């Protein structure tokens, strides 16, 4: 317990120190300190500021990775959303995938709370539902049923949010962190080149073999890429 508390203090010290380095323009020092703070504590502020520091040193891929982690922890933060979108405009590869407006709407609804919040909230709601069902069973009051119904809708929302976040994690997203890399048709160097990707490109990892990842780009195309060219987000 004391150890945990100590580490929180230490990471906030690291974080504040990193902020000072950032403000005076020493972005590389700031990156080191934020990374250390991030090993101790998972916090959206750390990831966000780390993303900024990477962005300032023109490492778009690393910036996007950290913004996405910050988004995972604090999906309602407008700064995180803005910087993630802004950093994506700095990519060499422009993706022209038409996004379904319904998908956007669903995304907006189910990204209003983070995975952790959804999990805790759903547990609390389930307890409340149980209490009201019990109340109905004992006292036979109809109003308890209505409240239960409302709570059940909330629980459904939480579960769907949960599922939506989990699916995002399970897709194993990754970001390209080298200036340029080629994806090949097989997991070795002598395979045919399929597409060239650049720093900041996001893709999902489908398979893993011989030091290569099979990645799928938005829009469906993909290929095998060397492991050191990309970094997993989660």
């Amino acid at each position: 317990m004391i150890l945990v508390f100590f580490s929180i203090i230490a990471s906030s010290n690291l974080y504040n120190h990193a902020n000072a380095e950032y403000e005076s323009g020493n972005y590389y020092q700031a990156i080191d300190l934020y990374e250390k703070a991030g090993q101790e504590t998972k916090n959206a502020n750390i990831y966000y500021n780390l993303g900024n520091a990477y962005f300032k040193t023109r490492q778009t891929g690393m910036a996007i990775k950290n913004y996405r982690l910050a988004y995972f922890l604090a999906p309602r933060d407008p700064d995180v959303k803005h910087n993630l979108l802004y950093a994506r405009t700095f990519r060499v590869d422009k993706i022209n995938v038409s996004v379904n407006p319904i998908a956007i709407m669903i995304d907006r609804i189910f990204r209003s709370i983070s995975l952790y919040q959804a999990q805790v909230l759903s547990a609390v709601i389930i307890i409340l539902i149980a209490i009201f069902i019990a109340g109905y069973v004992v006292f036979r009051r109809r109003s308890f049923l209505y409240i239960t119904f409302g709570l059940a809708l909330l629980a459904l929302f939480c579960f769907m949010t949960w599922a939506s976040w989990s699916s995002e994690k399970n897709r194993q997203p990754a970001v390209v962190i080298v200036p340029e890399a080629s994806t090949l048709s097989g997991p070795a160097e002598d395979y045919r080149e399929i597409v060239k990707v650049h720093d900041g490109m996001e893709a999902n990892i489908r398979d893993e073999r011989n030091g290569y990842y099979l990645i799928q780009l938005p829009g469906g195309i993909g290929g095998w890429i060397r492991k050191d060219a990309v970094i997993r987000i989660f």
Partner: protein
Amino acid sequence: MLRKIGSCLFASIIFLSSASLNFTASVNRSEVGINEPLTLTVMVEGENIGNVPSPQLPELPDFTIGGRSSSQSTNIQLINGKLTQQQTISFIYTLYPKETGTKTIGACKLEFKGETYQTQPLGINVVKDNTKPPPGPGPGAAQTSADQIKDKIKLIATVDRKSVYVGEQINVEFNVYTNVRADYGNFEKPNFNDFWVEPVFDAQQVNYETVTFEGKQYSKFPIKKAALFPIQDGQLQITSMKLTAIVPIQPTSFFDFGRSENIELKSNPIYIEVKPLPEENKPREFCGGIGKFSVTANLDEDSSNAAEPINLRIRISGTGNVRTVQKPDLPTIPGLKILDPEVKDQTQMTDNKIQGYKEFLYPIIPQIDGEHVIPSIRIAYFDPSDNKYHIRETNLLKFVATQTAVASQTASSNTIKTLGADINHIKADQKHLPDQRFNADWKVSIFYILSILIIGIAFIYRRHSERLLTDRAYARKIRSSRITRQGIQEAEKALKKNDMIKFYSALTRSLEGYVGDRFNLDTGALTKEQIANILGAKGVQAELITDLIKIITRCDQSRFSRGPRCDNPREIMNRAKQIIKEL
């Protein structure tokens, strides 16, 4: 004369040890009249001499130095496949001799790249007066010297007035007066820095006109005419215009093949006294106009639908500094958005005055429906002819706007302009950074188990209370233990008081009651044998039944017969409790 002309260009050239640099000095003539200028040219030739310093002139006690200048030329040659870059830098000095006699210009010195170069001294014969009487006009008259020609060709600048107000028009003219045939070149514009300039005339070709100037007949032609409007007050200068006249010198003998003389013409600088505008009675509406002006205003349409812009045209026209007139101040009119105007102007020169108009086209966007009135717009100008400010104003203008609300959301011209984009700044310092997790841990699942338990308990409780109401046997069974406990307590109380009758009756009642409730029997109406049979049928142990019957019998005996209390009542009590527990 021939000798003199022939020796006019006297030069001495020294070849110094270093072949890469030539350092020479020359004068344009070896004989010069007193008060006449003498040009000393010091030339440096060579490769890579771009940063050569100025040469050191010798002591010149017999001359005054009138002016100096330098010129540079570069000659790039490809000889035998080798590129040579020959540079020539000339330092030109104008010298005026002080007294007559044979004078010497000493050696000029030049130090460059650690070496010292020297020119040979030059001898000059200064005579009393070199100017010959001017030759009579007419063909065949020999033009012998540049100085003689100089009198015959002049560049004169004139202005029509020398004292004006700020912004008042001045006409300036540059004319060449000449009596010789010449070509002109090297035109150098005068400096009009302190004036707003309206060019009126720039010579494209020479159109002569015969005039009398300073008592002599000249052919005159204009070089440049302009209207100037001073921007600031004070003494302003119109600097000189420069022009080179190339005058051919007619051959005077068979051996003279003719040559030409370059004569630099320079106009006289002119000083203009510019008065500031009187501050007294200066109207607020003063638009900067000096002269005579009028103003008109009109709208291009008299109605606007859906917030379409209407153009208000304000035209200030008149004589004077039309182009520098400022835009009139429009009042803010509620319900109208007036945008910045589009400005157009046009001027022309009529009777030596600049005339024209300046037009301001204001787009107006109505923001509310109804009739809008544009009040009369006033401008003021200064008239230098009567030294007074005058005000002119426009008529009232009206127009009708409809359906402005439809477009008001879209036609906003006040949108914020984005100048650039960047990432949002980092988050501020924190005292404590809470550890936010990606996933809740297993402890959360306790809540789910707990919720199932809550519902389960609720159902069990519900079932229990329903049976209490409907199932008599169940209800008796639930209640039996409570009643029996009460009976036992009563019996214990009686035992403490040593009230044996009460003790035995309470004990019997609770035992019988318990058995009745437990097995849903009406024990009061049953004999001991019947009870024993029924209990036996319900599968109760025979031993237990015998004990029960024994206790009940004992109690009855003790209650009804006044026999000796042979046995310990406490033992009976414990036995009864045991039976209840085991049943």
